[in-house]
């Protein structure tokens, strides 16, 4: 009786595991599979205009030009207002558009823009941007937009960012279980850490 039970539990587990791998393996990395809520931002920031392809009118700015802390810190960070102004001060063509006017209003009042958080994790999870960027962008030499896109989706096609991935533990683990090369030139492979304390400190 017990043996039968144990067997069935094993089988169910196996099917579930295979199923989940199959589902995740079939997913392209940069498309939406779990859309978050639409978030109203104080300024409708056009990611597509800044980071999008030149063919579609984008500037092809590197993600890390603005989110400069991603490679150095836990958080990618919202750029300081001075960074926006640094460029827009000398871009006369859009200076009088409503969004840029609003931007300069914040700047002149020396008030930060009250952005809303789009990607959030529970307080008991510690996600580290630096580790991921160092691994994928610098060690494996993956394109920046692809590396960021694993979790953030294809931001260069959006205006205001919207959550694209579930950012749940199962979803994180599904990626951490996959083998990937250690660096761009190495044939050695490894996978992401699966220790509890890596994220739950």
């Amino acid at each position: 009786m017990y043996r039968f039970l144990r067997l069935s539990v094993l089988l169910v587990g196996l099917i579930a595991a295979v199923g989940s791998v199959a589902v995740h393996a079939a997913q392209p990395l940069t498309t939406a599979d779990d859309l978050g809520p639409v978030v109203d931002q104080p300024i409708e920031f056009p990611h597509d205009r800044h980071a999008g392809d030149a063919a579609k009118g984008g500037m092809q700015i590197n993600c890390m030009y603005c989110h400069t802390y991603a490679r150095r810190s836990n958080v990618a960070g919202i750029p300081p207002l001075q960074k926006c102004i640094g460029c827009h001060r000398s871009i006369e063509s859009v200076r009088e558009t409503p969004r840029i006017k609003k931007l300069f209003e914040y700047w002149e009042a020396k008030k930060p823009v009250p952005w809303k958080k789009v990607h959030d994790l529970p307080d008991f999870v510690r996600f580290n941007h630096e580790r991921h960027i160092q691994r994928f962008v610098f060690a494996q030499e993956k394109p920046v937009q692809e590396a960021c896109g694993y979790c953030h989706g294809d931001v260069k096609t959006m205006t205001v960012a919207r959550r694209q991935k579930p950012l749940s533990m199962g979803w994180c683990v599904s990626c951490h279980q996959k083998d990937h090369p250690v660096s761009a030139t190495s044939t050695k492979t490894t996978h992401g850490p699966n220790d509890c304390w890596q994220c739950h400190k």
Partner: protein
Amino acid sequence: MIENSFNRRDFLKVLGWGGATVALSGCGNTSVEDGREYVTSYVETADYIIPSIGTYFNSTCAQCDAGCGIMGRVREGRVLKLEGNPDSPINSGKMCGLGQAGVQAHYNPDRVREPLLRNGDKGEAITWEKALQLVSEKVASANPGSVAFLTGGVSGHVKVLLKNYLDAIGSDRHYVYEAVAPSVVRAANKKAYGVEMPRLRLDRAKVVVSFGADFLGTWVSPVHFSRQYAKFRKGVNGERGVLVQVESKMTITGANADRWLAIRPGTEGILALGLVNALSAAGLTVPAEVAAAVKDYTLDRVSNDTGVSVEHIGKLTALLKDRSPSLVIAGGAAEGYAHGSQNAAAVALLNQVLGNVGKTVEAPASMPFPQMAPITGNRSSLQALNDSIAQDGVKVLFNCGANPIYSAPASMNMKESLKKVPFKVAFAHYMDETAMEADLVLPLNSSMEDWGTVVPEYFAEGAQLNIQQPLMEKLHPGTLGMGDVLLALLKQRRPAEYNGYEDYYAYLKNAMVAIKGALGGENEDDDVFWDSVLSQGVVKLTSSSNALVSSASAAGLQLPPPAAEDGTYPLRLIPAVTPNMRDGRHANEPWLQESPDPLTTIVWDSWVEMHPKTAAKLGVVEGDIVEVASKNGAIKGQVYVYSGIHPDVISVPLGYGHEAMGRYSKGVGANAFKILDPVFDQQTGELAMYETRVKVTKAGKRVIVVKDEGPAGGNQSGRRIALRMASGKVNLAEEV
């Protein structure tokens, strides 16, 4: 003890519901706030500021007067944790628990947030403009000689501004009061060595004999002495230093000593002179005049008077003779008597006879800017103020950093006395006992929001000037720094001189840059110099030091015989200065309440410490509530039985029993300051803290003492580790 109607059963109920709520909220992932939380970026920022990574800024600890350099870890504009500044010679990168609790002084929920003006029993919030206007009017209408300042220890540029303000209004009345300070030892040192506090070189001594100086816990500059103590323990040429502590109640220093000698209270001087005599007999060269003065202090007599055995005196003599240089220190336990000056002088004499002056007792560096040098306080100063108030000599009283209503002995009756002052202004962090009586309360910035300079009372090496800089923006817009307030008051009086400074920061920067030559920046650009000063946090000054007087003399030494027993009040009360609480000014920082006292491990309450023999005689056990009564009042507390105390003595820690101040201190424990007998040191007039006679009577109830050690308590020294009381022996009816 905490008298609280919130019982154990209610506590468990709340815990249960709380747990259920947490469990429910966990289901819906409600801690994820997609699109609801704000994520605020900087408007402008420096390159080295990276979100989620801490940046360290140097400043100075304001928790006591030692002046340790600190580094505050600042993240996203908030100060999170303090570390020691490695460049500060005082603490060399180390810190104590009291210093760590500094962040709780800053984030404390009971801080005063706006100026309050008395309206009957209530404080009414007013604006700073109105408050300063009111101060100006009151000062203008009073006779200049009747305006007085009462402060704690003060130094640096705030002291300069304070002096200038008093000059501007034509008053010279600045009273400095510290409840717990080595005032008598300072006076005795001045006589013996020519300086108030010589530089003590524990690191060079081979033997240290401390007469009740708790230099590892609470005395003068504990973190600095702890660093020196570590070197002393490693020893010169591998010869490990030996520490002997002589005191009636064990301190944390006594607990670290190789030999702890429980001495009959008040006989420290007799032991010191007995040692001089014994050393002379053992062949040490002693001036004839001194030898003649101490010849009556024979081994037997000294042993009989002090209660220290002949054998131990002999060993101590041999130790001091064989190992030189040594160092003898007089601390709180030696000075706290009517003949405290004599005790301290006898200890200084022992140092001189041993030839330690110039070797382990060095001349301290002198401060090249005397106007910024710290003023130390004492009780005589408060007495002078009190006498003047009694004669209606004070019309406006400013109070800053002193809490006399809490800490002055009951005999001074400060509460009633202060009622006679028509206008009292309190600069306050909390609504403490003294601020509650004020007519106008002016809320101050925390030390982590304020600019300033601090000159430590005790220089570790050369003279130094510590920088205090804000570690974060002000938490409450309604507070101001002491320097800013003084500057605003000075602008009313001397606009031509001070209107050029927008705020205290501008004044401070200007004043520092003006003396940059003396601060080692003569060739630097003003801004470069200022930036480097801020980044270092400590400015080392070139200073000279005066030679010490080293001639030993026993002239004027007059030690009384041990005090006779008092029939009605048979025990002596030692008000203990503990490393957490000190004089009670930080009692509202919960970390200090909840971190166990190092010797008894008791938390969140005061206690009555007594020897097992004394407890047996009184018929009490640990946890019995007893009444400790002196001629001047009575307090209640839980008994703690401990072998590290003389059987003639009981001890109650200071710093507890606040009647105001805040949610973490009000009503916790009992205030031992209030029952001290008004006995004073005959030479300096300081309160003799250890002279109070008490009787102890059982008050009925028994409680479980909340402490960190196992129920076996003091038995741990017998290596019966963590004994548990059998559940059958616990009387649940007695639980509170």
